[in-house]
């Protein structure tokens, strides 16, 4: 579609605005903050933005996959914090190494996705309700082993034992190491993870037949089913991908914090959902897509960092995020209506 619009007719200004509007806005925003926010255009601030964008972006990619099959995953935020707590527990309480911490988290994420998917396709629970239920369940379950306290070395467990395990250096490397990229220590590991996952999700969605069929399910489930697609299997797969990606986000968060902080990750759900929905508007896609999602996450990250550096109070951040999201949604849906009219 995109490739051929040029051949057919000269795009109107409105079409151009729809297609490149968000990218232009992103660039304009960067220029604005560089000019007016002191120290915005510095490596330090870039690292900070990248780091905050990476985890949100990875979670948002998971949301994107569920949006593709016309679903929705509200449990990603709590899956991520569960992974944060689980990895801490594995290393600090069970005293196992980084490999096991990561493995347990990924299995947990896949299991959460599997349960979400089965609740939705087998028990016929509406997606929002099933994942909302899962969200509460996870928020609760992650507090039980430590009676609601954060996990750190030297804490006293409910049975009176004192924890002796430590976060393995290999694990912390995931959250703290930064690669050199023109400037020393510019790219955190989490950003590399984001880019790799983003590429894989993009390729899976756009280049493989499985991604194609998942888009077909999202557009017309009945038709996809009558064309022989195993709709239930793909839906469960989507939630499992979402769960695994959320647990990856949780692992990276744990590695950055270096302790099982019960209170972190509160904003993860809303930020990543916002990123995925803003992604609809990028390049006029009007559908969930991996590239748009990453741009969406970047957009939110830059906006918040810029506002912070311009000394906007922290409590205005949610308001600004909400405003951006609403504008993006108007962009997308007012437009896709125009698209469907002919």
């Amino acid at each position: 579609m995109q490739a051929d619009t040029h051949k057919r007719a000269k795009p109107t200004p409105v079409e151009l605005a729809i297609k490149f509007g968000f990218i232009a806005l992103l660039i304009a925003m960067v220029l604005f903050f560089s000019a007016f926010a002191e120290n915005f255009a510095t490596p330090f601030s870039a690292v900070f933005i990248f780091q905050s964008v990476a985890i949100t972006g990875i979670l948002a990619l998971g949301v994107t996959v569920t949006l593709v099959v016309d679903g929705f995953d509200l449990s990603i935020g709590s899956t991520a914090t569960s992974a944060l707590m689980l990895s801490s527990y594995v290393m600090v309480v069970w005293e196992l190494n980084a490999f096991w911490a990561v493995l347990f988290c990924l299995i947990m994420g896949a299991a959460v996705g599997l349960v979400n998917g089965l609740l939705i396709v087998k028990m016929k629970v509406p997606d929002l309700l099933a994942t909302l239920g899962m969200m509460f369940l996870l928020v609760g379950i992650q507090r039980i082993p430590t009676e609601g306290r954060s996990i750190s070395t030297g804490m006293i467990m409910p049975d009176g034992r004192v924890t002796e395990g430590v976060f393995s250096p290999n694990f912390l490397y995931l959250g703290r190491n930064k690669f050199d990229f023109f400037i020393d220590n510019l790219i955190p590991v989490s950003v590399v993870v984001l880019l790799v996952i983003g590429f894989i999700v993009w390729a899976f969605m756009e280049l493989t037949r499985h991604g194609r069929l998942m888009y077909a399910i999202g557009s017309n489930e009945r038709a996809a089913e009558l064309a022989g697609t195993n709709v239930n299997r793909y839906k469960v797969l989507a939630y499992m991908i979402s769960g695994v990606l959320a647990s990856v986000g949780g692992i990276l968060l744990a590695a950055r914090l270096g302790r099982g902080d019960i209170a972190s990750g509160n904003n993860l759900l809303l930020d990543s959902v916002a990123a995925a929905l803003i992604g609809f508007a990028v390049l006029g896609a009007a559908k969930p897509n991996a590239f748009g999602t990453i741009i969406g996450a970047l957009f939110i990250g830059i906006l918040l960092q810029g506002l912070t550096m311009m000394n906007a109070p922290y409590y205005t951040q949610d308001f600004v995020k909400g405003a951006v999201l609403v504008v993006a949604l108007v962009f997308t849906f007012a437009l896709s209506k125009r698209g469907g009219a002919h």
Partner: protein
Amino acid sequence: MSIVVDKWQEASLVSFSRGNSVQSTAVEIKDLTKAFGTNKVLRGIDLELHAGQVTALMGANGAGKSTLVKVLCGVHSANGGQIKMFGASYAPASPSAAIEAGVVTVHQSINDGVIPDLDVASNLMLDRLANGGGFFVNKRAIRVEARKLAALIGLEVDMRQMVSDLGLADRQLVAIARAMAHKPKLLILDEPTSSLSAKEAVRLFELLDRLRVQGVAILYISHRSSDIRRIADRIVAMRDGRISGVFEGVSLDYEGAVKAMLGHSMSEISLDIPMPGAPVLRLGDIALLPESEPFSLDLHDGEVVAITGLVGSGKSALAEVIFGLAKPAAGHMELRGAPYAPRHQAAAIAAGVFQAPKDRASNAVIQGFDITKNITLPFSKRHSKMGLLSRQSERTTAQRMVQELGIVCQHVTDDIGSLSGGNQQKTMVGRWMAEDANVLVLDEPFQGVDIKARRDIGAKIRATAKGRATVVMVAEMDEAVEIADRIIVMADHTIKGDHRNENIDLNMVLAQVAGSSETSGHINAG
């Protein structure tokens, strides 16, 4: 049965005797036209509906009957012509304007007419609740009012019961009772018995008898001969957006009405009927419903078989059995000599049994996909290596189908939504013709397409018929005669007739469509 007939005659006697004194034209429709874009759905309807009479309206899919109903009940506005209600001009701007003017509609899907999670009384008084009358709800007053309304139509349920706890018939009665609150002059019922049991239907008919005596004009949409024989004073048949026949009198000519609705103008296309090859799909003693009569059917290589019948005749049920969407109540199938019992549609497709479903908008078209992606959807495996799609391979297939079916587009990457209805339909047929099939079932492939697209699709189906058995489900007799080597008639979930499409006796075919069983044994023998 005889009691029912007596009652019916009694009721119609009443209406006729009333007719002498007060029978008046309730609704007069003159030259009514309605088009959606270039698609003319109503092409000049002239119709009178009389007070105290039940007029049955029949028409195949796409004949325009639902559009006519929607104009009458204020959902659509007409493009031309006029409607008069008791002499006064009537042109409702909205459904609520129609209700105010005394035109009340009970829609086919019962749950559109009731709110399941409210009690009966609130449902009956819903329109009053919705249209003002204070802020607080006086439950007792509402129950009293509601009870009056219920008594009027013989609805005997507890006013405090939830509608969701009621049976279908009672829900339907609630919807009708609610309609009665508006003192209707014209009551429109759209396939009201489609979800009712025989016993429940009897109650509905008794109610309609009472309403008829009260002088309400009733427009009753149905294809069921038993319904129509029981309740109708008159049958109006629609076809291609026009009234194609009006039948009245004491002995209603139901078969004549079926004929008028399906039409039988001979098509100019002459078919060259090939000798059928070896059997591809054999159905043995298949019973679609536990109580329906079992039948056997062989579909041969190179043969195009049209299966025709009214809505509810079992056509769709048969298509579902062949495609693995449903299991037959009894019987077995064989595909090229091997037992065939697909557990789901993917298994059917793997066995080379394809189905292009009816109603492309909800069952086939993937909006947001281009022509290529729509065509290759079921066979994406064939266009991919290790899961990676080859856009080139996909486009080659799509270009071939675009060319062979004459799909009018600028490029195979055009969005499906940018195509006309006929070209979308061609794309959907092309989706299943892109690969070789053992059995190809096309359910209503001509639905909502113009004559040109219909001819193109038909010619393509016939030209490629060799190597597979082709089944085309159609309601319109013209379409069956135009495309098939063999025409099979279904009614009551079984096969009523099987004809070679040569010098075909259309009167007999239409009699079988109408479900007359006297002739069927004779035909099967011959």
